Structures are given as C-alpha cells and as structure tokens.
C-alpha cells in the first residue's frame, strides 16, 4: 500500500524504517511531505516559504 501525494497524486512507497513525522520528498513533484501515518500510509504537505517577487 502506498500513500498518495496531496499535491500531484503520485503513489509514494515509504522506504523501510520510515517513522511518523519524518520528512520525505515526493519522487514526482519534489514536494516536501511529512509522514502523518505509517500504517495506513499517509502524508501531508510540509510547511514551506514561497517567494514573492514584484512588490
């Protein structure tokens, strides 16, 4: 069973030894994700800062 990336919908297989609150990267969109649950596998987007040009 795989977690689904909340950004791009990719299937994400957890590496062996993955623990809750660990940060991982989606292999497709590169988004940094936080492991919310190992079983069942769930992730959510980790907080990040966005750039804001043009002010």
């Amino acid at each position, binding site marked *: 069973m795989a977690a689904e990336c*909340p*950004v*791009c*919908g*990719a299937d994400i297989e957890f590496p062996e030894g993955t623990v809750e609150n660990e940060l991982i990267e989606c292999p*497709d*969109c*590169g*988004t940094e994700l936080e492991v919310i649950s190992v079983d069942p596998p769930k992730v959510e987007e980790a907080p*990040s*800062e*966005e*750039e804001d040009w043009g002010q």
Partner: protein
Amino acid sequence: MMNKISVSIVGGSGYAGGDLIRLLLFHPNVELKQVTSERFLGKALYKVHPNLRKQTDLKFCAIDELESCDVIFLCLPHGKAMGSIEKFNLLADKIIDLSADFRLNNPAEFKKWYGEDHKFPEKLNEFVYGIPELHREEMKTAKYISSAGCNATTTILGLYPLYKEGLVEPDRTVVEVKVGSSEGGNRSTESSHHPVKDGSVRSYQPTQHRHTAEIIQELSFGKEIKIHFSATALDIVRGILATSHVFLNQELEEKDIWKLYRKYYANEYFIRIVKEKEGNYRYPEPKIVAGTNFCDIGFKKDEESNRLVVISSIDNLMKGAAGQALQAFNIMNGLEEKTGLEFPGLHPY
C-alpha cells in the same frame, strides 16, 4: 557487433548542423561520412565549428561530391530540400530533413504559410512529422522524417496531453515563446549587430509565425482549433521558453493535471515535469536544458479562472533540431532511443 550506419549531412555549416555533427561524431553506431557546405567548401569542419577541433579530420565537401550512404540529414535553408529531394534519395534510402519543407501534410497550408507552391506535394505524406513522442510507431518503419520546428516542438509537447484529451477551449489558446538568438541562424545581419542586439527584448513575430501551422496540424485531432502565437527574442543564445495560456473546458484540479501529464509522459525519458514550490528552478528554464535533448514542462492553474498556464522549455538546437533529429534517427534504425543524447546539461551554465 552491428555494422555502423553511414551518415552524411547536407548543409552542415549552420548551428543545427554543427550540433548534429557533434552528436554524430560520438554516436557509437554511426560513421559520419561526409558533410557538405558550398560556402566553406574544402575547409576543415572545426574552422566553422571550433568546438570540434581535433575531433575529426573531415572537411566540408560539395553536394555534387556526395557518395551513397545509409542516411542523409538535410540541414538546408527552408525551401531548398523540396526541390532536390529526389537527388538525395538516389544516394540514401532514408532521409531526415531539418527544414520546414516537409512538415505540413497539406500543400494548401504550405502555400498559405510559406508563400509558394510546394515543389513536391506528392511527397508530403511520405514524411513522418519529427516529434518522437507523438509519432514513434510511424518512425520505426519510416524512410522520411521531417524534424519539427523548434518553437512548434516546445509548444506541442507542452499542450499535447490537453488537446489529445479535448480538455481545452479550442480557440482561445495563447502562446508566447521567448527564444534565443541562435534561432536566427549563423549569418549576421544589421539586426544582430552587437550594439543593436545586446540587451534587447525583441518582439520579432507577434503574429503569423510559420510554426503556428505545425502546431495546429499536430494538436487539432480532426477539430477546428486556433492557436494565438507570438515570439519574442531574448538576449540569450540557446533556448526557448513557451508560456501557453489555455482555458480548460471543465473543472480540473492541479492534481488532475499532474495525472494527465503523467499518463502521457511518465515513460518519456526526454520529457520531465518541472513544478516545484520552492527553490531556484521551480518551473522549466532554458538554461537548465541547454545542450540537452530534454523538454521540461510545468504548469499552474489560475485559481480565479479556468486558465491553465503551461510552461515548456527546450534547447532550440537540440530538442528543437539536432537532438530531435538524432532521436528520430535512433528510432528509425532500431537503436536505443537515448543513444548519443545522454548529456544532462551543465550547472551552472
């Protein structure tokens, strides 16, 4: 071990020709036999392409000196290939033309966009349009391939999944390409004079760009569509960035768009989806694909409307010309598609 495929290039003194020579010299299955240039007849290749110094002893020869070979690449100026295709066909069974002469299937469209009657209209349908990701199966048995225009390639690859699935309003797409100066070829003009060109951002073709015809041909799928296309030249040498504004005809979330592009391109080595929330390279950028055969594609949905912005980028001389042609060559000759095209680019560049 298989015999090497003998290859000659007709018109090898331009920038696309130079990149093609570079690629073919290091292709493990190719023997580069002859390269023609009337302008530089008898000169060593490196005199025109200095990066090839000490890489080959070949000299430019005349078209009349060409010997038979397995495959001929035509890198002639537009309009020259169609008049002499039969002559080249006597020398090689397989031809890959990098000019615009055989890109359009319809002779009337050719006349409309290129302003003259096609000299060999009955040959148009024998050529396979040269974007491998769209025409791979036809290429496997093709004798003739017409490499796609560089701006058209960037645009088509960016929009293909959306048009193929009929997900956009067919007459509202606006495409703006930003291009490097090497698109203009290696002949200097008043407009390329350094004091004039340096630092410029030049709207060189706001409407009626000829590549529009190819884009419509490849994205219409039997329906009537419109592509509103503009081109701007930037102060860079290589590269194209296409920003395409399409209007979705149904509610789609970004995750749906991801899945759509994954469906078409997940197994395409030369296409990468680039869309990240942070970092210096969140969307496709020409400098990252310079020298490579990659096409990077990203997108962003406007949360206030049904507009989807698709951003795609290639090196105009590679995926937009020589690299695309070599990829097609590999397919047409049953070779591993990536052969000779593995270079991942430079960073920083």
